[in-house]
């Protein structure tokens, strides 16, 4: 198995994790669905980062950059209209564990430079977005 295949195989992990998330979004309770939406953009960001490395196209990281900015925005829009922003340990820990576990190996593979700075930026944005949108007590005070 070549290294690029390895990265793509790694991308399969967050991609497959999207399957149960889809189930929760389609059939879960309102809070669950919002958690699912949040988790989807986080996992999609990780898939995109790994796929970019697997295809050897650093410019594909722009797609992950846009996800890391717009994903939490989408979640907050839903939160405002649904009046819930559920506290979710799942999202928080997926972000705190999954993002470094993805971004740091990618940084090692990329080597220092602008591409690495962009990777770190995307990682920080993904973590910040997920932590804020899954924060404890965020539920009170969010009204339309």
């Amino acid at each position: 198995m070549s290294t690029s295949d390895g990265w793509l195989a790694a991308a399969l992990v967050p991609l497959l994790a999207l399957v149960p998330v889809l189930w929760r979004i389609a059939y879960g309770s309102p809070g669950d669905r919002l958690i699912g939406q949040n988790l989807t953009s986080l996992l999609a960001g990780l898939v995109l980062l790994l796929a970019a490395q697997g295809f050897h196209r650093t410019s594909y990281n722009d797609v992950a950059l846009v996800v890391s900015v717009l994903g939490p925005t989408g979640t907050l829009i839903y939160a405002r209209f649904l009046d819930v922003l559920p506290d979710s340990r799942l999202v928080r820990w997926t972000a705190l564990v999954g993002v470094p576990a993805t971004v740091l190996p990618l940084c090692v593979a990329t080597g220092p430079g602008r591409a690495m700075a962009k990777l770190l930026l995307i990682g920080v944005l993904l973590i910040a977005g997920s932590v804020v949108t899954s924060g404890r007590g965020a539920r009170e005070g969010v009204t339309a």
Partner: protein
Amino acid sequence: MSPRVRLWVFLVGAAGFAALFAAACLDLPAFGTVPHPYGVRAVHAALSHHTANVIASVNFDLRAFDTLGEESILFSAVIGTVVLLRQARDEHRKDPEPATVHPPVRRFALLTLPFALLVGLYVIAHGQISPGGGFQGGVVAATALHLLYIAADYRALERVRPLTLYEIGEAAGEAAYVITGLAAVLAGSAFLANVLPFGTLATLSSGGTAMVLNAAVGLEVTSGIVVLLARFLDQAVEIEEPGEGGGSPRDTRDSGGNGDDERERA
């Protein structure tokens, strides 16, 4: 038409479509194989015009006229929305109530706003170099402005969003595209031909008119989406129809608590 007949009509249609679709699929070239002749020529044309992103070259150089059509679709769609969602004579406007937002959400949204705006501008500016371009970046930039609605409320967004300016920006973007095309005619070439110097490959100023047209589309899309969302927000937050049960939509639900029930009931 009774449900039974409707089902039969659907089944016949679906069966016909399935047969034709399967027949068409059998004649397709194999998945992900030989380079397409058009692809080879497009890449060649893009590189000869110093445009690193071949898609941008196809959009703004080889098929710039198609893109003018697409831009005009968005332009006229936004105008249509503005006309349809205008304030009618018997509707009245009320001030949107201030919303309370959880402090971390407010901080996060306010911090992300300039950042998202920057990402949008970056995607527009690098259209001819890396994936993205005027449309994609324009939508991101327009979304970024609406983080202010998330961070505070609609009134805060209205205060920093001079709508007239965006309406002018939309028209200017569309006009800039046409004018660039006409300028090529004045320069003795065809409409929308790439007559500018091509610049150095993979720099911000590369691509000749592709870069200019990309920027024009970026301006048009950013302004267009802002105007579009403004109409929707006006309708949902400010404009009240006659007889609409007094006050705001916020009165109908308790904050936070039973928002879920409210949704389930519907």
